[in-house]
């Protein structure tokens, strides 16, 4: 489709088409939108893309995406330095940050153990986590991977590996989401919710 358009327009459509979830029609729509906006706005977009590409890197401590090293969270002295929350990727960290409940630090593993995809512990940032724990001062490790088979395998692996270090290891709770209808809950979730029940009085 992009071949019918004038050179630069065709190129713009072709570039949009490479993006995830963007098909030929969406790429065409985005390209027309770019043409319709003022030059300054298109410039802002181009600059934002370049700036993100140039400045965003991994934090050397927690491996979060950041434009400063160490990242804002790692360099914030008001945060609890004795707790590290282990998550699979930066999106999980953002989800936890939105709760405004957790005030500790993070460690981003860069994935979870997935034997079906050939991803083992050696492909995750486990050595880096061990190094952080080796420097001392960490009292609790919160394992916050997804409650999937792969997430659980990662939790079991990390628990076995880190238990001898004497750090308190906790796992975020399983169970029914707030506002859910129990009638529609699946058996695995309900079983886990029962296993994780707590005393209220």
């Amino acid at each position: 489709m992009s071949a019918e358009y004038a050179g630069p327009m065709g190129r713009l459509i072709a570039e949009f088409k490479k993006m995830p979830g963007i098909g030929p029609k969406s790429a065409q729509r985005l390209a027309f939108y770019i043409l319709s906006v003022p030059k300054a706005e298109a410039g802002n977009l181009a600059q934002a893309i370049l700036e993100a590409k140039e400045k965003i890197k991994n934090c050397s401590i927690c491996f979060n995406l950041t434009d400063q090293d160490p990242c804002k969270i790692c360099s914030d002295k008001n945060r609890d330095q004795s707790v590290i929350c282990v998550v699979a990727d930066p999106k999980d960290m953002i989800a936890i940050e939105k709760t405004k409940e957790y005030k500790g630090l993070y460690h981003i593993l860069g994935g979870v153990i997935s034997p079906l995809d050939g991803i083992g512990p050696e492909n995750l940032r486990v050595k880096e986590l061990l190094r952080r724990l080796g420097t001392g001062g960490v009292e609790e490790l919160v394992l916050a991977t997804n409650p999937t088979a792969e997430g659980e395998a990662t939790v079991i692996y990390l628990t076995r590996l880190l238990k001898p270090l004497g750090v308190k290891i906790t796992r975020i709770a399983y169970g029914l989401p707030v506002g859910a209808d129990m009638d529609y809950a699946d058996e695995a979730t309900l079983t886990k919710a029962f296993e994780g029940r707590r005393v209220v009085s």
Partner: protein
Amino acid sequence: MSLFKVEAINLKTTPFAEQDKLLTVFSKEKGKLSVIAKGARRPSSKFGGRCEIFAYNHLLIAKGKSLDILSQAETIETFQKVRDNPSAFMVAAYLARVVNSFLEEAAVNRSLFEVLLGCLKLFQAGVDPQFVATVFEIKFAAVEGFTPILDRCSHCGRKVKKAPQNIRFSDAAGGIVCEKCSFSVYTPRLVSFPLLVLSQKIRDQDFETLRNNYKQHGDLSQLSEIFVAYISEHLGKDISEWKRFGI
């Protein structure tokens, strides 16, 4: 929109689009299928744990233009213990990977379905994962029609003198080979004949007997090695790297 019902085991789940999951399931009625579970990644999704790997469900699927859409799911067996035990999980993942890579889309294969289901039930019953892996490998070769030939030369059909211990075995020929063929046609390896005989016994036993008697078989890692090399030759893929007994 036409709907159809299947009984299926989840072989693989992949995140799809914003909130969906792409499930690769092995169904009893229609073989391997790819199905979209809409919204399955949302915490409040009705699918939740039903989309987890190894879960065995009744599925109601709507025929889509390109991909089919999961409409309803009801669990028959969660196989939660398989996911909770790391050794069982790693071995079960190996089984799922072999099945997934072997099966063509929509090719019905009831015998292999029963083998996979039987193996998951063995894991769930707490049977040693190494033993389950060996059972799977032996039964997989059997249901797919390349069980090793042990009563004659697998190349020329001549009688082979039974060896008390090691015997010439050729993966390519599909069983034991006589002295003559081993020099002229194949490069066989020497494998334990009693172990090969044991494999026939395991092949013919049902899953309930295997569950009750698994302790008497002892260490079968050598037998498993023979079958992994044998299956790899027949599938044209080295499956030995997929097998891990722990994490």
